[in-house]
Protein backbone atom coordinates (compact mmCIF):
# COMPACT_ATOMS: atom_id res chain seq x y z
CA UNK A 1 0.00 0.00 0.00
CA UNK A 2 2.89 2.33 0.56
CA UNK A 3 4.10 2.25 -2.95
CA UNK A 4 1.21 2.89 -5.25
CA UNK A 5 1.57 5.02 -8.33
CA UNK A 6 -2.19 5.16 -8.95
CA UNK A 7 -3.36 8.61 -9.90
CA UNK A 8 0.05 9.85 -11.05
CA UNK A 9 -0.55 10.61 -14.77
CA UNK A 10 1.97 12.38 -16.93
CA UNK A 11 0.81 15.27 -19.07
CA UNK A 12 4.08 16.11 -20.80
CA UNK A 13 6.80 14.04 -22.38
CA UNK A 14 9.33 15.77 -20.17
CA UNK A 15 7.49 14.64 -17.07
CA UNK A 16 7.21 11.15 -18.46
CA UNK A 17 10.95 10.99 -19.10
CA UNK A 18 11.91 12.30 -15.66
CA UNK A 19 14.44 10.28 -13.69
CA UNK A 20 11.90 9.24 -11.09
CA UNK A 21 8.43 9.41 -12.60
CA UNK A 22 6.84 7.83 -9.50
CA UNK A 23 6.44 10.39 -6.68
CA UNK A 24 7.42 7.99 -3.89
CA UNK A 25 10.78 7.36 -5.57
CA UNK A 26 11.33 11.07 -6.02
CA UNK A 27 10.66 11.86 -2.37
CA UNK A 28 12.74 8.94 -1.21
CA UNK A 29 15.81 10.06 -3.19
CA UNK A 30 15.46 13.76 -2.28
CA UNK A 31 15.06 12.67 1.35
CA UNK A 32 18.17 10.52 1.11
CA UNK A 33 20.29 13.31 -0.40
CA UNK A 34 19.06 15.80 2.22
CA UNK A 35 19.80 13.20 4.97
CA UNK A 36 23.30 12.80 3.57
CA UNK A 37 24.05 16.52 3.47
CA UNK A 38 22.24 17.80 6.56
CA UNK A 39 21.33 15.12 9.07
CA UNK A 40 24.27 12.73 8.91
CA UNK A 41 27.01 15.31 9.71
CA UNK A 42 25.25 15.98 13.01
CA UNK A 43 25.89 12.62 14.61
CA UNK A 44 28.43 10.76 12.47
CA UNK A 45 31.73 10.19 14.28
CA UNK A 46 35.18 10.28 12.73
CA UNK A 47 35.40 6.50 12.23
CA UNK A 48 32.06 6.40 10.37
CA UNK A 49 33.34 9.06 7.96
CA UNK A 50 36.80 7.77 7.18
CA UNK A 51 36.09 4.04 7.21
CA UNK A 52 32.53 3.77 5.95
CA UNK A 53 31.00 6.81 4.25
CA UNK A 54 33.95 8.18 2.27
CA UNK A 55 35.15 4.77 0.95
CA UNK A 56 31.62 3.71 -0.01
CA UNK A 57 30.94 6.97 -1.89
CA UNK A 58 34.27 7.03 -3.73
CA UNK A 59 34.12 3.35 -4.68
CA UNK A 60 30.52 3.67 -5.85
CA UNK A 61 31.74 6.35 -8.26
CA UNK A 62 34.25 3.83 -9.65
CA UNK A 63 31.49 1.20 -9.68
CA UNK A 64 29.28 3.57 -11.70
CA UNK A 65 32.19 3.98 -14.13
CA UNK A 66 32.61 0.22 -14.51
CA UNK A 67 28.83 -0.22 -14.70
CA UNK A 68 28.71 2.14 -17.67
CA UNK A 69 31.36 0.05 -19.41
CA UNK A 70 30.27 -3.46 -18.39
CA UNK A 71 26.64 -3.02 -17.33
CA UNK A 72 25.44 -0.67 -20.06
CA UNK A 73 27.84 -1.30 -22.93
CA UNK A 74 28.63 -4.98 -22.31
CA UNK A 75 32.45 -4.61 -22.46
CA UNK A 76 33.94 -6.68 -19.60
CA UNK A 77 36.99 -4.90 -18.14
CA UNK A 78 39.49 -5.84 -15.42
CA UNK A 79 41.54 -2.66 -15.85
CA UNK A 80 39.68 -0.49 -13.32
CA UNK A 81 42.58 -0.38 -10.85
CA UNK A 82 44.96 0.86 -13.53
CA UNK A 83 42.63 3.65 -14.63
CA UNK A 84 42.15 4.72 -11.00
CA UNK A 85 45.93 4.91 -10.71
CA UNK A 86 46.08 7.13 -13.81
CA UNK A 87 43.55 9.49 -12.17
CA UNK A 88 45.44 9.50 -8.87
CA UNK A 89 48.89 10.18 -10.33
CA UNK A 90 47.59 12.74 -12.86
CA UNK A 91 45.96 14.66 -9.99
CA UNK A 92 49.11 14.36 -7.84
CA UNK A 93 51.39 15.64 -10.58
CA UNK A 94 49.10 18.54 -11.47
CA UNK A 95 48.74 19.58 -7.82
CA UNK A 96 52.51 19.25 -7.40
CA UNK A 97 53.59 21.16 -10.50
CA UNK A 98 50.88 23.86 -10.39
CA UNK A 99 50.11 24.20 -6.68
CA UNK A 100 47.47 26.92 -6.99
CA UNK A 101 45.12 25.02 -9.33
CA UNK A 102 41.67 24.69 -7.89
CA UNK A 103 40.84 21.25 -6.52
CA UNK A 104 37.92 20.81 -8.92
CA UNK A 105 40.23 21.45 -11.89
CA UNK A 106 42.68 18.91 -10.46
CA UNK A 107 39.98 16.23 -10.33
CA UNK A 108 38.68 17.15 -13.78
CA UNK A 109 42.22 16.85 -15.16
CA UNK A 110 42.54 13.45 -13.47
CA UNK A 111 39.31 12.33 -15.14
CA UNK A 112 40.41 13.58 -18.54
CA UNK A 113 43.80 11.86 -18.34
CA UNK A 114 42.14 8.59 -17.34
CA UNK A 115 39.70 9.09 -20.19
CA UNK A 116 42.53 9.41 -22.70
CA UNK A 117 44.28 6.30 -21.38
CA UNK A 118 40.93 4.46 -21.23
CA UNK A 119 40.19 5.15 -24.87
CA UNK A 120 43.70 4.06 -25.84
CA UNK A 121 43.26 0.72 -24.06
CA UNK A 122 39.68 0.49 -25.35
CA UNK A 123 40.76 0.16 -28.97
CA UNK A 124 41.25 -3.65 -28.79
CA UNK A 125 37.56 -3.89 -27.80
CA UNK A 126 36.69 -3.24 -31.45
CA UNK A 127 38.03 -6.61 -32.51
CA UNK A 128 37.92 -8.65 -29.29
CA UNK A 129 34.84 -9.67 -27.31
CA UNK A 130 33.85 -11.26 -24.01
CA UNK A 131 36.50 -12.95 -21.81
CA UNK A 132 39.25 -12.32 -24.33
CA UNK A 133 38.61 -8.59 -23.81
CA UNK A 134 38.63 -9.05 -20.01
CA UNK A 135 42.06 -10.66 -20.17
CA UNK A 136 43.21 -8.02 -22.70
CA UNK A 137 42.26 -5.24 -20.25
CA UNK A 138 44.49 -7.01 -17.72
CA UNK A 139 47.33 -5.92 -20.01
CA UNK A 140 46.43 -2.28 -19.31
CA UNK A 141 46.16 -3.02 -15.57
CA UNK A 142 49.63 -4.57 -15.28
CA UNK A 143 51.24 -2.05 -17.63
CA UNK A 144 49.90 1.01 -15.77
CA UNK A 145 50.82 -0.52 -12.40
CA UNK A 146 54.37 -1.12 -13.68
CA UNK A 147 54.64 2.34 -15.25
CA UNK A 148 53.75 4.16 -12.02
CA UNK A 149 56.20 2.04 -10.06
CA UNK A 150 59.03 2.50 -12.53
CA UNK A 151 58.87 5.91 -14.22
CA UNK A 152 60.34 8.17 -11.55
CA UNK A 153 58.84 11.34 -13.02
CA UNK A 154 55.33 10.22 -12.02
CA UNK A 155 56.29 9.84 -8.37
CA UNK A 156 58.41 13.01 -8.43
CA UNK A 157 61.63 11.00 -8.00
CA UNK A 158 60.60 9.94 -4.47
CA UNK A 159 63.23 7.36 -3.44
CA UNK A 160 60.60 5.28 -1.68
CA UNK A 161 58.13 5.35 -4.59
CA UNK A 162 55.36 6.44 -2.22
CA UNK A 163 53.85 9.87 -2.73
CA UNK A 164 51.83 12.03 -0.36
CA UNK A 165 49.38 14.88 -0.69
CA UNK A 166 49.52 18.09 1.35
CA UNK A 167 46.71 20.15 2.80
CA UNK A 168 43.66 20.34 0.56
CA UNK A 169 41.56 23.42 0.21
CA UNK A 170 38.79 24.56 -2.11
CA UNK A 171 38.06 28.24 -2.82
CA UNK A 172 39.96 29.08 0.34
CA UNK A 173 38.03 26.71 2.57
CA UNK A 174 40.28 24.00 4.05
CA UNK A 175 39.19 20.39 3.50
CA UNK A 176 40.83 18.77 6.48
CA UNK A 177 38.38 17.40 8.97
CA UNK A 178 36.65 14.12 8.07
CA UNK A 179 33.27 15.91 7.83
CA UNK A 180 34.56 18.44 5.28
CA UNK A 181 36.11 15.62 3.27
CA UNK A 182 32.82 13.70 3.43
CA UNK A 183 30.73 16.66 2.26
CA UNK A 184 33.16 17.37 -0.59
CA UNK A 185 33.04 13.74 -1.75
CA UNK A 186 29.26 13.58 -1.38
CA UNK A 187 28.82 16.73 -3.50
CA UNK A 188 31.03 15.37 -6.30
CA UNK A 189 29.36 11.94 -6.22
CA UNK A 190 25.82 13.37 -6.36
CA UNK A 191 26.68 15.67 -9.29
CA UNK A 192 28.44 12.93 -11.22
CA UNK A 193 25.69 10.39 -10.57
CA UNK A 194 23.16 12.83 -12.00
CA UNK A 195 25.42 13.35 -15.05
CA UNK A 196 25.71 9.57 -15.47
CA UNK A 197 21.92 9.14 -15.21
CA UNK A 198 21.36 11.81 -17.86
CA UNK A 199 23.95 10.28 -20.21
CA UNK A 200 22.37 6.85 -19.81
CA UNK A 201 18.84 8.16 -20.48
CA UNK A 202 20.01 10.07 -23.50
CA UNK A 203 21.23 9.13 -26.96
CA UNK A 204 24.64 7.89 -25.73
CA UNK A 205 23.02 5.52 -23.23
CA UNK A 206 20.80 4.00 -25.86
CA UNK A 207 23.79 3.52 -28.15
CA UNK A 208 25.64 1.69 -25.37
CA UNK A 209 22.70 -0.53 -24.55
CA UNK A 210 22.10 -1.27 -28.23
CA UNK A 211 25.74 -2.29 -28.65
CA UNK A 212 25.48 -4.40 -25.52
CA UNK A 213 22.34 -6.27 -26.59
CA UNK A 214 23.14 -6.94 -30.25
CA UNK A 215 26.00 -5.03 -31.78
CA UNK A 216 25.24 -6.14 -35.35
CA UNK A 217 21.69 -4.82 -35.19
CA UNK A 218 23.03 -1.63 -33.57
CA UNK A 219 25.47 -1.18 -36.45
CA UNK A 220 22.67 -1.61 -38.97
CA UNK A 221 20.52 1.12 -37.46
CA UNK A 222 23.44 3.52 -37.75
CA UNK A 223 25.35 3.19 -34.47
CA UNK A 224 29.08 3.06 -35.25
CA UNK A 225 30.53 0.34 -33.02
CA UNK A 226 33.80 2.33 -32.79
CA UNK A 227 31.94 5.44 -31.52
CA UNK A 228 29.73 3.51 -29.09
CA UNK A 229 32.47 1.33 -27.52
CA UNK A 230 35.12 4.03 -27.29
CA UNK A 231 32.65 6.54 -25.86
CA UNK A 232 31.75 3.94 -23.22
CA UNK A 233 35.45 3.43 -22.42
CA UNK A 234 35.94 7.20 -22.35
CA UNK A 235 33.04 8.09 -20.03
CA UNK A 236 33.70 5.06 -17.84
CA UNK A 237 37.39 5.90 -17.51
CA UNK A 238 36.51 9.52 -16.70
CA UNK A 239 34.39 8.37 -13.74
CA UNK A 240 37.03 5.84 -12.67
CA UNK A 241 39.81 8.43 -13.00
CA UNK A 242 38.01 10.96 -10.81
CA UNK A 243 37.25 8.22 -8.29
CA UNK A 244 40.95 7.23 -8.31
CA UNK A 245 41.98 10.83 -7.60
CA UNK A 246 39.39 11.11 -4.82
CA UNK A 247 40.58 7.78 -3.36
CA UNK A 248 44.20 8.93 -3.31
CA UNK A 249 43.61 12.51 -2.11
CA UNK A 250 40.81 12.11 0.37
CA UNK A 251 40.96 8.50 1.50
CA UNK A 252 44.61 7.52 1.55
CA UNK A 253 46.57 10.78 1.73
CA UNK A 254 49.78 8.92 0.89
CA UNK A 255 49.93 5.90 -1.37
CA UNK A 256 52.05 3.72 -3.65
CA UNK A 257 51.11 1.99 -6.95
CA UNK A 258 50.21 -1.15 -4.99
CA UNK A 259 47.09 0.64 -3.73
CA UNK A 260 45.62 0.36 -7.26
CA UNK A 261 46.59 -3.22 -8.04
CA UNK A 262 44.64 -6.11 -9.55
CA UNK A 263 42.73 -6.68 -6.30
CA UNK A 264 41.22 -3.21 -6.67
CA UNK A 265 39.93 -4.17 -10.14
CA UNK A 266 38.40 -7.36 -8.78
CA UNK A 267 36.86 -5.44 -5.87
CA UNK A 268 35.12 -2.98 -8.19
CA UNK A 269 33.98 -5.82 -10.48
CA UNK A 270 32.47 -7.59 -7.45
CA UNK A 271 30.60 -4.39 -6.56
CA UNK A 272 29.13 -4.06 -10.05
CA UNK A 273 28.10 -7.70 -10.29
CA UNK A 274 26.70 -8.02 -6.74
CA UNK A 275 25.08 -4.61 -6.95
CA UNK A 276 23.50 -5.38 -10.30
CA UNK A 277 24.77 -4.94 -13.85
CA UNK A 278 23.24 -2.01 -15.65
CA UNK A 279 21.87 -0.11 -12.67
CA UNK A 280 23.26 3.00 -10.95
CA UNK A 281 21.46 2.12 -7.73
CA UNK A 282 23.18 -1.26 -7.97
CA UNK A 283 26.59 0.43 -8.00
CA UNK A 284 25.84 2.14 -4.68
CA UNK A 285 24.37 -1.01 -3.11
CA UNK A 286 27.29 -3.12 -4.35
CA UNK A 287 29.88 -0.63 -3.02
CA UNK A 288 28.19 -0.47 0.37
CA UNK A 289 28.04 -4.27 0.57
CA UNK A 290 31.68 -4.87 -0.40
CA UNK A 291 33.02 -2.18 1.96
CA UNK A 292 30.84 -3.01 4.96
CA UNK A 293 31.06 -6.79 4.79
CA UNK A 294 34.74 -7.22 5.83
CA UNK A 295 34.38 -4.60 8.60
CA UNK A 296 31.27 -6.34 9.86
CA UNK A 297 32.97 -9.73 9.70
CA UNK A 298 35.99 -8.46 11.61
CA UNK A 299 33.81 -7.14 14.38
CA UNK A 300 31.51 -10.19 14.48
CA UNK A 301 33.64 -12.27 16.89
CA UNK A 302 33.87 -9.24 19.17
CA UNK A 303 30.09 -8.81 19.18
CA UNK A 304 29.32 -12.48 19.66
CA UNK A 305 32.06 -12.74 22.25
CA UNK A 306 33.77 -15.75 20.62
CA UNK A 307 37.55 -15.28 20.89
CA UNK A 308 39.03 -15.97 17.44
CA UNK A 309 42.57 -15.52 16.23
CA UNK A 310 42.96 -12.86 13.57
CA UNK A 311 44.22 -15.50 11.17
CA UNK A 312 40.99 -17.46 11.53
CA UNK A 313 38.93 -14.30 11.17
CA UNK A 314 40.67 -13.29 7.97
CA UNK A 315 40.34 -16.81 6.57
CA UNK A 316 36.67 -16.74 7.53
CA UNK A 317 36.41 -13.41 5.79
CA UNK A 318 37.67 -14.99 2.56
CA UNK A 319 35.29 -17.92 2.93
CA UNK A 320 32.20 -15.91 3.79
CA UNK A 321 33.03 -13.41 1.05
CA UNK A 322 33.25 -16.16 -1.57
CA UNK A 323 30.14 -17.89 -0.26
CA UNK A 324 28.15 -14.63 -0.28
CA UNK A 325 29.07 -13.97 -3.91
CA UNK A 326 27.94 -17.43 -4.96
CA UNK A 327 24.80 -17.14 -2.81
CA UNK A 328 23.80 -13.83 -4.33
CA UNK A 329 24.48 -15.00 -7.86
CA UNK A 330 22.23 -18.01 -7.33
CA UNK A 331 19.44 -16.20 -5.51
CA UNK A 332 19.37 -13.13 -7.73
CA UNK A 333 21.73 -13.09 -10.73
CA UNK A 334 20.80 -9.46 -11.35
CA UNK A 335 22.09 -8.35 -8.00
CA UNK A 336 20.92 -6.19 -5.13
CA UNK A 337 19.27 -3.68 -7.46
CA UNK A 338 16.81 -6.35 -8.61
CA UNK A 339 16.21 -7.37 -4.97
CA UNK A 340 15.41 -3.72 -4.27
CA UNK A 341 13.00 -3.65 -7.21
CA UNK A 342 11.32 -6.85 -5.97
CA UNK A 343 11.04 -5.31 -2.50
CA UNK A 344 9.37 -2.26 -4.03
CA UNK A 345 6.92 -4.48 -5.84
CA UNK A 346 6.19 -6.31 -2.59
CA UNK A 347 5.59 -2.95 -0.90
CA UNK A 348 3.00 -2.20 -3.54
CA UNK A 349 0.87 -5.07 -2.16
CA UNK A 350 2.30 -5.20 1.30
CA UNK A 351 -0.53 -5.78 3.77
CA UNK A 352 -2.43 -7.76 1.16
CA UNK A 353 -1.09 -11.12 -0.04
CA UNK A 354 -1.90 -10.58 -3.73
Amino acid at each position, binding site marked *: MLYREAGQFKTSYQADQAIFPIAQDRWFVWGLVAFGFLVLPLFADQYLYTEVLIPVLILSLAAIGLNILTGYCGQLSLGTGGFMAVGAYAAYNLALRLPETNLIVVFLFAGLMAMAVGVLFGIPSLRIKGFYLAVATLASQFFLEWAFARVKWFTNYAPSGSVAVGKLELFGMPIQTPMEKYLFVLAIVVVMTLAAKNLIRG*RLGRMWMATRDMDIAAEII*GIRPLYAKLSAFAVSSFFIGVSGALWAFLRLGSWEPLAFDINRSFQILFMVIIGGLGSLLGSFLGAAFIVLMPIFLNQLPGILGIPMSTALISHLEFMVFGAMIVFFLIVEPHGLARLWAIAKEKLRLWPFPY
Partner: protein
Amino acid sequence: MRAPAASDIAAGEVLLSVEDVTLSFGGVVALRDVSFDIKKGEIRAIIGPNGAGKTSMLNVINGFYQPQKGSISFKGETRTKMRPYDAADGGIARTFQNVALFKGMSALDNILAGRTLKMKRGWFWQMLRIGPALTEEIEHRKRVEEIIDFLEIQAIRKVPVARLPYGLQKRVELGRALAMEPDLLLLDEPMAGMNLEEKEDMSRFIIDVNDHYGTTIALIEHDMGVVMDLSDRVVVLDHGVKIADATPDEVKKDQAVIDAYLGVAH
Protein backbone atom coordinates in the same frame (compact mmCIF):
# COMPACT_ATOMS: atom_id res chain seq x y z
CA MET B 1 5.88 12.88 -40.81
CA ARG B 2 7.40 14.80 -43.69
CA ALA B 3 8.08 13.01 -47.00
CA PRO B 4 11.38 11.08 -47.19
CA ALA B 5 14.57 13.05 -47.71
CA ALA B 6 14.07 15.57 -50.49
CA SER B 7 16.07 13.36 -52.80
CA ASP B 8 16.34 14.64 -56.29
CA ILE B 9 14.95 11.42 -57.77
CA ALA B 10 11.36 11.88 -58.88
CA ALA B 11 8.85 9.15 -58.17
CA GLY B 12 9.19 6.20 -60.59
CA GLU B 13 12.92 6.83 -61.19
CA VAL B 14 15.46 4.11 -60.24
CA LEU B 15 16.35 4.57 -56.55
CA LEU B 16 18.61 1.59 -56.22
CA SER B 17 20.14 -0.65 -58.88
CA VAL B 18 22.03 -3.89 -58.34
CA GLU B 19 24.49 -4.59 -61.20
CA ASP B 20 25.46 -8.32 -61.62
CA VAL B 21 26.42 -8.88 -58.01
CA THR B 22 28.21 -12.13 -57.12
CA LEU B 23 28.60 -13.16 -53.46
CA SER B 24 30.33 -16.35 -52.27
CA PHE B 25 31.43 -17.71 -48.90
CA GLY B 26 34.56 -19.70 -49.74
CA GLY B 27 33.25 -22.35 -52.17
CA VAL B 28 29.55 -21.72 -51.56
CA VAL B 29 28.16 -19.23 -54.12
CA ALA B 30 25.19 -17.40 -52.58
CA LEU B 31 24.48 -14.97 -55.44
CA ARG B 32 25.66 -15.14 -59.09
CA ASP B 33 25.40 -12.12 -61.47
CA VAL B 34 22.16 -10.81 -60.01
CA SER B 35 20.95 -7.49 -61.44
CA PHE B 36 17.71 -5.65 -60.84
CA ASP B 37 16.53 -2.22 -59.85
CA ILE B 38 14.08 -0.72 -57.40
CA LYS B 39 12.12 2.32 -58.45
CA LYS B 40 11.27 5.10 -56.05
CA GLY B 41 7.91 4.75 -54.31
CA GLU B 42 7.23 1.16 -55.41
CA ILE B 43 6.87 -2.00 -53.33
CA ARG B 44 9.44 -4.39 -54.81
CA ALA B 45 9.09 -8.03 -53.73
CA ILE B 46 12.02 -10.52 -53.74
CA ILE B 47 10.82 -14.10 -53.61
CA GLY B 48 12.24 -17.56 -54.10
CA PRO B 49 12.45 -20.94 -52.35
CA ASN B 50 14.43 -21.38 -49.13
CA GLY B 51 18.18 -20.86 -49.59
CA ALA B 52 17.68 -18.92 -52.82
CA GLY B 53 19.87 -16.08 -51.48
CA LYS B 54 17.10 -13.59 -50.62
CA THR B 55 18.46 -12.62 -47.19
CA SER B 56 22.01 -12.56 -48.57
CA MET B 57 20.80 -10.10 -51.23
CA LEU B 58 19.35 -7.90 -48.51
CA ASN B 59 22.58 -8.11 -46.55
CA VAL B 60 24.55 -7.00 -49.61
CA ILE B 61 22.25 -4.00 -50.20
CA ASN B 62 22.55 -3.01 -46.61
CA GLY B 63 26.35 -3.35 -46.53
CA PHE B 64 26.55 -6.27 -44.14
CA TYR B 65 28.18 -8.49 -46.77
CA GLN B 66 30.66 -7.17 -49.37
CA PRO B 67 30.05 -8.74 -52.82
CA GLN B 68 33.06 -10.30 -54.61
CA LYS B 69 31.93 -8.85 -57.96
CA GLY B 70 29.46 -6.25 -59.21
CA SER B 71 28.27 -3.04 -57.57
CA ILE B 72 25.25 -1.29 -56.17
CA SER B 73 24.28 2.26 -56.88
CA PHE B 74 21.95 4.04 -54.54
CA LYS B 75 20.46 7.43 -55.26
CA GLY B 76 22.77 7.74 -58.26
CA GLU B 77 26.17 7.14 -56.69
CA THR B 78 27.80 3.74 -57.02
CA ARG B 79 29.41 2.62 -53.81
CA THR B 80 32.05 -0.07 -53.33
CA LYS B 81 33.17 -0.80 -49.74
CA MET B 82 30.25 0.12 -47.48
CA ARG B 83 29.69 -0.56 -43.81
CA PRO B 84 26.14 -1.08 -42.50
CA TYR B 85 26.16 2.25 -40.66
CA ASP B 86 27.02 4.08 -43.92
CA ALA B 87 23.94 2.43 -45.49
CA ALA B 88 21.87 3.54 -42.50
CA ASP B 89 23.31 7.07 -42.84
CA GLY B 90 22.40 7.01 -46.53
CA GLY B 91 18.76 6.23 -45.69
CA ILE B 92 18.44 2.42 -45.87
CA ALA B 93 16.62 0.77 -42.93
CA ARG B 94 15.69 -2.85 -42.47
CA THR B 95 14.01 -5.40 -40.29
CA PHE B 96 15.29 -8.94 -39.68
CA GLN B 97 14.04 -12.43 -40.39
CA ASN B 98 14.28 -13.43 -36.74
CA VAL B 99 13.63 -10.25 -34.77
CA ALA B 100 16.79 -8.38 -33.74
CA LEU B 101 15.53 -6.07 -31.02
CA PHE B 102 17.57 -4.77 -28.05
CA LYS B 103 16.28 -7.08 -25.30
CA GLY B 104 17.59 -4.95 -22.44
CA MET B 105 15.49 -1.93 -23.45
CA SER B 106 11.78 -1.07 -23.52
CA ALA B 107 9.80 -0.79 -26.77
CA LEU B 108 9.98 3.01 -26.57
CA ASP B 109 13.76 2.98 -26.13
CA ASN B 110 14.17 0.54 -29.01
CA ILE B 111 12.33 2.88 -31.35
CA LEU B 112 14.15 5.91 -29.92
CA ALA B 113 17.41 4.06 -30.72
CA GLY B 114 16.37 4.35 -34.35
CA ARG B 115 16.57 8.14 -33.93
CA THR B 116 20.26 8.03 -33.02
CA LEU B 117 21.43 9.29 -36.39
CA LYS B 118 18.99 12.15 -36.34
CA MET B 119 19.97 13.50 -32.94
CA LYS B 120 22.95 15.83 -32.93
CA ARG B 121 23.50 17.14 -29.41
CA GLY B 122 27.00 16.42 -28.03
CA TRP B 123 27.86 14.65 -24.79
CA PHE B 124 28.09 17.86 -22.80
CA TRP B 125 24.53 18.90 -23.49
CA GLN B 126 23.25 15.38 -23.03
CA MET B 127 24.94 15.30 -19.66
CA LEU B 128 23.21 18.47 -18.50
CA ARG B 129 19.95 17.56 -20.22
CA ILE B 130 18.70 21.13 -20.06
CA GLY B 131 18.06 23.64 -22.83
CA PRO B 132 18.88 22.36 -26.32
CA ALA B 133 19.45 18.78 -25.22
CA LEU B 134 16.05 18.56 -23.58
CA THR B 135 14.20 20.16 -26.48
CA GLU B 136 15.91 17.80 -28.91
CA GLU B 137 14.99 14.81 -26.74
CA ILE B 138 11.37 15.94 -26.49
CA GLU B 139 11.09 16.69 -30.21
CA HIS B 140 12.40 13.25 -31.15
CA ARG B 141 10.13 11.74 -28.53
CA LYS B 142 7.18 13.39 -30.29
CA ARG B 143 8.30 11.93 -33.64
CA VAL B 144 8.48 8.47 -32.05
CA GLU B 145 5.06 8.91 -30.48
CA GLU B 146 3.63 9.50 -33.95
CA ILE B 147 5.12 6.18 -35.11
CA ILE B 148 3.77 4.46 -31.99
CA ASP B 149 0.29 5.80 -32.71
CA PHE B 150 0.67 4.82 -36.38
CA LEU B 151 1.54 1.24 -35.38
CA GLU B 152 -1.03 1.22 -32.59
CA ILE B 153 1.39 -0.05 -29.93
CA GLN B 154 0.71 2.68 -27.35
CA ALA B 155 -0.07 0.17 -24.62
CA ILE B 156 3.30 -1.58 -24.67
CA ARG B 157 5.46 1.56 -24.63
CA LYS B 158 7.25 0.83 -21.34
CA VAL B 159 7.33 -2.96 -21.59
CA PRO B 160 10.78 -4.56 -22.06
CA VAL B 161 10.71 -6.07 -25.54
CA ALA B 162 11.80 -9.51 -24.34
CA ARG B 163 8.37 -9.93 -22.72
CA LEU B 164 6.37 -8.97 -25.85
CA PRO B 165 4.65 -11.58 -28.04
CA TYR B 166 6.22 -12.29 -31.44
CA GLY B 167 3.71 -10.24 -33.45
CA LEU B 168 4.21 -7.10 -31.34
CA GLN B 169 7.99 -7.52 -31.46
CA LYS B 170 7.81 -7.45 -35.26
CA ARG B 171 5.79 -4.25 -35.04
CA VAL B 172 8.31 -2.60 -32.67
CA GLU B 173 11.06 -3.55 -35.09
CA LEU B 174 9.13 -1.95 -37.96
CA GLY B 175 8.69 1.10 -35.73
CA ARG B 176 12.44 1.27 -35.13
CA ALA B 177 13.13 1.10 -38.87
CA LEU B 178 10.54 3.83 -39.55
CA ALA B 179 12.10 6.01 -36.85
CA MET B 180 15.16 6.25 -39.12
CA GLU B 181 12.96 7.98 -41.73
CA PRO B 182 14.47 5.81 -44.47
CA ASP B 183 14.31 6.34 -48.23
CA LEU B 184 14.44 2.57 -48.75
CA LEU B 185 12.95 0.08 -46.28
CA LEU B 186 14.09 -3.55 -46.49
CA LEU B 187 11.59 -5.96 -44.90
CA ASP B 188 12.90 -9.49 -44.35
CA GLU B 189 9.81 -11.78 -44.04
CA PRO B 190 7.84 -9.33 -41.89
CA MET B 191 4.95 -11.79 -41.63
CA ALA B 192 6.83 -15.01 -40.88
CA GLY B 193 5.14 -16.91 -38.03
CA MET B 194 2.07 -14.67 -37.87
CA ASN B 195 -1.59 -15.71 -37.91
CA LEU B 196 -4.00 -14.43 -40.54
CA GLU B 197 -5.30 -11.50 -38.53
CA GLU B 198 -1.75 -10.29 -37.68
CA LYS B 199 -0.76 -10.68 -41.34
CA GLU B 200 -3.60 -8.41 -42.39
CA ASP B 201 -2.54 -5.79 -39.84
CA MET B 202 1.08 -5.92 -41.02
CA SER B 203 0.03 -5.69 -44.71
CA ARG B 204 -2.10 -2.65 -43.90
CA PHE B 205 0.91 -1.06 -42.17
CA ILE B 206 3.16 -1.76 -45.16
CA ILE B 207 0.69 -0.21 -47.57
CA ASP B 208 0.18 2.80 -45.29
CA VAL B 209 3.93 3.33 -44.98
CA ASN B 210 4.23 3.23 -48.77
CA ASP B 211 1.33 5.61 -49.37
CA HIS B 212 1.55 7.87 -46.32
CA TYR B 213 5.32 8.28 -46.18
CA GLY B 214 6.08 7.38 -49.84
CA THR B 215 8.88 5.09 -48.62
CA THR B 216 10.19 2.66 -51.25
CA ILE B 217 9.94 -0.90 -49.86
CA ALA B 218 11.83 -4.06 -50.75
CA LEU B 219 9.89 -7.00 -49.39
CA ILE B 220 10.98 -10.62 -48.89
CA GLU B 221 7.98 -12.84 -48.28
CA HIS B 222 6.91 -16.46 -48.74
CA ASP B 223 3.15 -15.91 -48.55
CA MET B 224 2.29 -15.67 -52.28
CA GLY B 225 -1.09 -14.11 -51.55
CA VAL B 226 0.57 -11.18 -49.71
CA VAL B 227 3.26 -10.79 -52.37
CA MET B 228 0.80 -10.72 -55.21
CA ASP B 229 -1.51 -8.19 -53.51
CA LEU B 230 1.12 -5.79 -52.18
CA SER B 231 3.96 -5.61 -54.64
CA ASP B 232 4.26 -3.54 -57.82
CA ARG B 233 7.08 -5.69 -59.25
CA VAL B 234 8.60 -9.04 -58.25
CA VAL B 235 12.14 -10.46 -58.54
CA VAL B 236 12.45 -14.24 -58.30
CA LEU B 237 15.74 -15.80 -57.16
CA ASP B 238 16.62 -19.48 -57.24
CA HIS B 239 19.99 -20.91 -56.12
CA GLY B 240 21.45 -17.41 -56.24
CA VAL B 241 20.38 -16.74 -59.84
CA LYS B 242 17.64 -14.33 -60.98
CA ILE B 243 15.06 -16.36 -62.94
CA ALA B 244 12.30 -13.75 -63.33
CA ASP B 245 11.69 -10.01 -62.91
CA ALA B 246 8.21 -8.73 -63.78
CA THR B 247 4.82 -7.70 -62.42
CA PRO B 248 3.10 -10.15 -60.06
CA ASP B 249 0.68 -11.41 -62.76
CA GLU B 250 3.46 -12.20 -65.28
CA VAL B 251 5.56 -13.90 -62.61
CA LYS B 252 2.58 -16.07 -61.55
CA LYS B 253 2.33 -17.50 -65.03
CA ASP B 254 6.11 -17.82 -65.69
CA GLN B 255 6.93 -21.58 -66.06
CA ALA B 256 10.45 -21.21 -64.70
CA VAL B 257 9.09 -19.79 -61.42
CA ILE B 258 6.55 -22.58 -61.06
CA ASP B 259 9.28 -25.20 -61.64
CA ALA B 260 11.51 -23.48 -59.06
CA TYR B 261 8.78 -23.57 -56.46
CA LEU B 262 7.23 -26.94 -57.28
CA GLY B 263 10.63 -28.47 -57.71
CA VAL B 264 11.67 -30.01 -61.02
CA ALA B 265 14.78 -32.09 -61.52
CA HIS B 266 17.40 -29.78 -62.95
